[in-house]
């Protein structure tokens, strides 16, 4: 692919990259920087083979830039607090509140019908964004590292200096919260839509 083509193709991906970077970094200026660096690396790089989609390739570059940014941020003690308290997000107790003392569902998961249909609807992706934004910062970061960046669990543990058990708790919390948020804001309302 000639470089003039690629610069034209990159522009439409900017919004997506920014969204993912913002959700993970919770810092607009830093997210802008990281996306800028990603696009620059993409323009100067030779890596795009056309084997994967452009977006998948860009996500791979962004992944490294975000991990670098997180590392850098962790080294700056003054801003560490802005990064959120990861310890409080590893507490599983508040999600036990979704269950009664005998371990049964307090409110059972509802029937979602054919949820796959929602994936083609723009509004569903907006609801998904809102639900991701509502997650505590580190919970969102870990969940996106796992599900969008497709980092392996040991890589995430290493980058964030947490153990595997902490990671499972955080991912469990993210999934429980997202499930509930999607159910309340989409499937309970739109479940009957075609």
């Amino acid at each position, binding site marked *: 692919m000639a470089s003039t083509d690629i610069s034209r193709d990159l522009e439409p991906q900017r919004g997506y990259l920014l969204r993912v970077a913002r959700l993970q970094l919770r810092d607009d200026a830093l997210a802008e920087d990281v996306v800028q660096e990603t696009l620059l690396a993409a323009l100067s790089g030779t890596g795009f083979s056309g084997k994967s989609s452009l977006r998948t390739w860009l996500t791979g570059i962004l992944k490294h830039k975000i991990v670098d940014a997180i590392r850098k941020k962790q080294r700056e003690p003054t801003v560490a607090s802005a990064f959120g308290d990861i310890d409080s997000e590893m507490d599983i107790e508040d999600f036990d509140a*979704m*269950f009664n003392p005998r*371990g049964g569902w307090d409110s059972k998961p509802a029937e979602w019908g054919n949820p796959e249909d929602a994936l083609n609807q723009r509004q569903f992706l907006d609801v998904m964004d809102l639900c991701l934004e509502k997650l505590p910062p580190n919970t969102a970061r870990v969940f996106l590292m796992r*599900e*969008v960046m497709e980092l392996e669990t040991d890589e995430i543990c290493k980058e964030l200096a947490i153990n595997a058990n902490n*990671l499972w708790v955080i991912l469990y919390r993210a*999934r429980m919260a997202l499930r509930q948020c999607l159910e309340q804001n989409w499937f309970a309302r739109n479940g009957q839509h075609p």
Partner: protein
Amino acid sequence: MIRRALGHIISCKDASRLVSRRQEATLSGWQRLVLRLHLSVCDACARFERQMAFLRNAMQRYRQ
């Protein structure tokens, strides 16, 4: 009767944790067995399991 009892060796709370953990780690043989028994008798957890699979798909779609 026996099937119901076997299905409740673990609670819904435990089942939901195993369903999530399975996406990152290989469960032990015992964990797989008790989870399967539970999912075969518990509609709510079976729905939860389908919703977790959907969530993973949805996140992949989010990237596309």
